[in-house]
């Protein structure tokens, strides 16, 4: 299987009054259409690693390849285009825009590039709402929805542009176990149906166990890399 993300000798140092190195010589690659979890204690460097893979942050040293393309050479606008077309993000907080409805929020990544939503995009949005079980709320303002519904709307938003990669940082961190189970089920279904590569950072073992591969980070280094 071909590798969709590859990190080579990645270091990350935060400079300030005291320089702090949070990642040490990370070498990782993720197969296309795989479902992966990155686990670790708070402060272990897993979110930093995720931000680097998502092109939101840059490594201090080392190289990152997405789809075989070296992203260190890309300017900010090219990176923005790459994120818009190829990477979906889900965070611990949904960051939905409160002035818009669930459907409008989901369409925002599409609007960033295309302005007016095509018929196919509307069908895709409806399919995602259906799959995530939130069709009833698609025209509601996000402020009127529960935490679980908001997070599922954020997942639909991450998937609207058919990204090859979905990066999720503690996506169930604020949710109860029942909702967590539903969201994990949705991730699995999306992974199988659309072939999306999932990389989920979590400290919830229950979530990690549902993936195909668990990478454990400790003190900025890969402690374990288990393929089930």
């Amino acid at each position: 299987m071909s590798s969709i993300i590859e990190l080579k000798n990645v270091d990350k140092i935060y400079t300030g009054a005291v320089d702090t190195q949070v990642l040490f010589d990370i070498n990782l690659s993720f197969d296309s259409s795989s479902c992966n979890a990155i686990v670790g204690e708070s402060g272990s460097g897993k979110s930093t690693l995720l931000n680097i893979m998502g092109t939101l942050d840059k490594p201090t040293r080392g190289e990152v390849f997405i789809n075989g393309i070296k992203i260190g050479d890309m300017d900010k606008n090219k990176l923005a285009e790459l994120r818009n077309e190829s990477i979906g993000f889900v965070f611990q907080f949904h960051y939905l825009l409160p002035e818009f409805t669930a459907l409008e929020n989901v369409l925002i990544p599409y609007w960033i590039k295309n302005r007016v939503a095509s018929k196919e995009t509307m069908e895709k949005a409806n399919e995602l709402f259906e799959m995530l079980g939130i069709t009833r709320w698609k025209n509601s303002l996000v402020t009127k929805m529960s935490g679980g519904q908001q997070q599922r709307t954020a997942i639909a938003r991450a998937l609207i542009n058919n990204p090859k990669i979905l990066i999720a940082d503690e996506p169930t961190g604020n949710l109860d176990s029942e909702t967590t189970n539903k969201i994990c089920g949705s991730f699995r279904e999306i992974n199988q149906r659309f072939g999306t590569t999932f990389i989920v950072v979590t400290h919830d073992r229950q979530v990690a166990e549902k993936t195909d591969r668990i990478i454990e980070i400790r003190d900025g280094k890969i402690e374990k890399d288990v393929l089930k």
Partner: protein
Amino acid sequence: MIIIGIAIAISIQIFVGLLINSLQKTLVDRTIGNSPQITILSSTDISTMRDWEILVREMGEIDQIKTLAVSATASAFIEDGNRNLPIIVRGFNFDDVDSIYNIRDSLYEGRPYQSVREVLIGKDLREDLEVDVGDKLVVKTPEGKEAIFIISGFYDLGVASINESWILANLETTQRIFNFGNRITSIEATMTDVFAADTTAREIEKLLDNDDIKVNNWKEQNEELLSGLEGQRISSIVIQVVIIASVVIAISSVLAITVLQKSKEIGILKAMGIKDLAASLIFIYEGFLVGLVGATLGVILGLGLLYGFNASTTSPDGVAIVDLYIEYDFILTSWFIGLAASTFAGILPARKSLKLSPVDVIREG
């Protein structure tokens, strides 16, 4: 909130600007509007001018001159019992004098003079003499010559000094009783733009090139009024500049706070692939749209305030104290300033947004 702020600021700008301009024009109109703005007199020892037809013809070719009237004027008096009332007999063709002093509208009883024997007298003189339309009026010239007139009507120009002293008669009448022959004493003119009176007066002097005449204009005779008007105009500009500066600072602050409040949303939009420039342009667009709506509302509100103010401030006889002059250029400029100020105010938050990094926002949670 921002829209209301802009609307209020622009409405005040329009209200203050148009009110002060209207006030100035009303003041000018009421003080010098119904009087000649340029007067040509003899500069020699003899107060009368001959060959005035040439002067009238040449002045008639000047664009800025709206109306012209020639007058033969002289002092006289009226014997009333044992007192002598000093008066001024002003001879004009009726249509000429009407074009300058608006006499027809000021006639409150009787009709314009027609024959050489008829005259009009003012309200105050009428009350003093206790006379009616059709009564005889005996006027004595300084040389002792007597002229008997019939009163054809009474005018009220709203100025007591004129109402009690001016007797209006035909040009020919005064020329005859004061032995002027064909000569006159003054040429009076009104202007299309009253404020151009001084430059036009200089132009006339140059054009006529005649040392025997002098050209007076209202501006050099009303310097105090002019400096008052200028003071008013400068205060109005200062007020308007302060208002616009406040608007720019207020909108800019509110939009800058919006960037802070919305930093999470901007961060996530950047993570989703919105480019830095596009994220910044949101604030310029927001400033523009807010300005568009706010400035338009401000124009409506400002005009509403102005008409409301005008309707509620009337003299006891129901006439508005200030005559409104709606200057469309000024309204359009104010509207555009509101729009431009609001768009400009979006620049600071746009710069803040440009520098916002999605990873910082996400890391802070």
